[in-house]
């Protein structure tokens, strides 16, 4: 077979990919490296290896408290986004409502609006309406930005499903509720699951909304880290960050297992 690409170009391609990989992953690698450093100062490569910063993080009330809040909010957001987004995706997919197209656009619109604009809007609206900002408000705002992901992954799965399954179920005697629960939802499940994991990840890592909508007792983990970074961070920040990176990697692995990431290569 005749090779289409000249050799030098192939080599250049490989080098290019390697360099790009470096650019994309360097910061993450650095963070992990700093987290295991011995010294008090942030330096990379680290001089001396130690796990002391992980110990420091795991015994720090501030970090643990912030982590716990992040976890709770992320859990709530996951449940809400999956239920609400999944239901909306089913309604949109069926295309029976007159304004389905509009609905689809509406549900995907939080993706388009820059988070900072949304953050301001939320802050102003809820303060004006209700005074202080509560964890519920933060959770709701996270849900709103996670919603499009759930809708998108669920719609993607639904669009590949056999369109006749519901009709077949009807001819077998299944009523409305039975069709939804026994046929439609099982069909959506991979999409819902992937969406749920995306939602969790988005909420847990979210920084901008959490910065604007914070309160004295409402500090999420990313906000805690941001605060540290503004002043003089010590490597404990790196340790927390590494834990977050590990969490993200785990989530990516799970999503890949459930749905196959190549599917999102055409997102």
């Amino acid at each position, binding site marked *: 077979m005749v090779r289409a690409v000249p050799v030098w170009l192939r080599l250049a391609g490989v080098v290019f990919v390697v360099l790009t990989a470096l650019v994309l992953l360097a910061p993450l690698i650095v963070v992990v490296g700093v987290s295991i450093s011995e010294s008090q100062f942030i330096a990379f490569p680290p001089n001396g290896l130690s796990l002391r910063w992980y110990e420091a993080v795991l015994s720090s009330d501030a970090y643990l408290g912030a982590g716990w809040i992040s976890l709770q909010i992320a859990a709530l957001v996951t449940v809400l986004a999956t239920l609400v987004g999944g239901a909306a995706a089913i309604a949109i997919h069926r295309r029976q409502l007159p304004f389905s197209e509009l609905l689809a656009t509406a549900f995907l619109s939080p993706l388009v609006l820059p988070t900072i604009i949304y953050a301001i809007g939320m802050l102003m609206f809820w303060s004006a309406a209700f005074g202080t900002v509560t964890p519920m408000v933060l959770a709701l705002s996270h849900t709103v930005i996670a919603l499009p992901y759930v809708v998108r992954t669920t719609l993607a799965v639904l669009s590949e499903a056999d369109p006749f399954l519901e009709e077949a179920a*009807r001819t077998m005697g299944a009523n409305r509720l039975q069709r939804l629960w026994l046929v439609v939802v099982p069909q959506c499940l991979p999409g819902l699951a992937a969406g749920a994991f995306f939602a969790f990840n988005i909420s847990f890592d979210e920084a901008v909304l959490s910065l604007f909508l914070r309160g004295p007792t409402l500090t999420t983990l990313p906000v805690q880290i941001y605060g540290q970074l503004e002043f003089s961070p010590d490597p404990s920040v790196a340790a927390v960050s590494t834990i977050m990176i590990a969490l993200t990697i785990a989530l990516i692995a799970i999503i890949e297992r459930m749905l196959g990431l190549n599917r999102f290569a055409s997102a």
Partner: protein
Amino acid sequence: MAKVRLHSIRKSFNKTGVLHGISLEIASGEFVSLLGASGCGKTTLLRIVAGLEGVTQGSVEIDGRDVTDLPPEKRDVAMMFQSYALLPHLSVAENVRFPLRMRRIGNRDEQAEKVRAALETVQLAHLAERKPRQLSGGQQQRVALARAIVSRPKVLLLDEPLSNLDARLREDMQVELIEMHQRLGLTTIFVTHDQEEALSLSDRIVLLNAGHIEQEGTPGQIYGQPATAFASNFIGSANLLPVQIVDGPDGPLARFGDGQDLALARDEPTRGAATVALRQEDLTLAETGSGPTVKVRTRVFLGARNRYVMTLAGQTIRALTGNDVDFADGQEVTLAIDPSRVRVIHE
């Protein structure tokens, strides 16, 4: 008493009429085929009986009860889809059990027994625990069939169930369907575009054309006495030729444009301009003879048979013959056909 009664069914989608007044009665235990080309409305009619489509006008009765406004889940029907529509997340056995669950037929043990029996009927009992995606197309089709009969519905609806199968599997499945119908005696409505399938499976055929019933009858009637040009053309692949019917010394003759004649049945009443339908398989060709002369244009080799494309009086005419004699391109041969097989079309 008729099991299924359709009264003047009219159906339009967005102002486009698809069915224009279909009335039909199907007796209990009858196997009826809805036959027609794509777009003739046969699948729409089937879906109306199932309840998946509503009617614009008209009514549907099943077992004496007006079900026109009832949704499918409340009608006692079962439908087999062209794409099988097996629930992918359930096993084969669970798929077959599904209608029993939904319609609350029997307790768990009874259901298990019915499922086992249904799967044995289609010879798939050994694959009961597999998932649909692990089965071949033919196996999936049999599971869909088992699922459709397990609840012994009042009406069994089959939407072109064999069209996705290859020729060999199709033949096998046709035989299985016939045997199953003989054994279970379910009232069945079968949709197909394949006239041979309809002929071989049905007690009665309903030929549909553009939303109308073109002709209704037993396979023998439809094949032997097609009433219209469309029917002739659709069943048995006939040649349609314009002729003048005149009186000859031994009875009426069909005279072609070039003056050649073909003998008709003695009791043929029509005279003057008409159309005759000559079935390809009814024509015989010979090097010499008394019938009209035709010129061979091409021979199409079909294995066990030959199809000859020829010219008669400026018209193209096709014949289906055995493969014992071969005629060359350009050769002139004689056409022969039993006068009683020549159909004169009255329209």
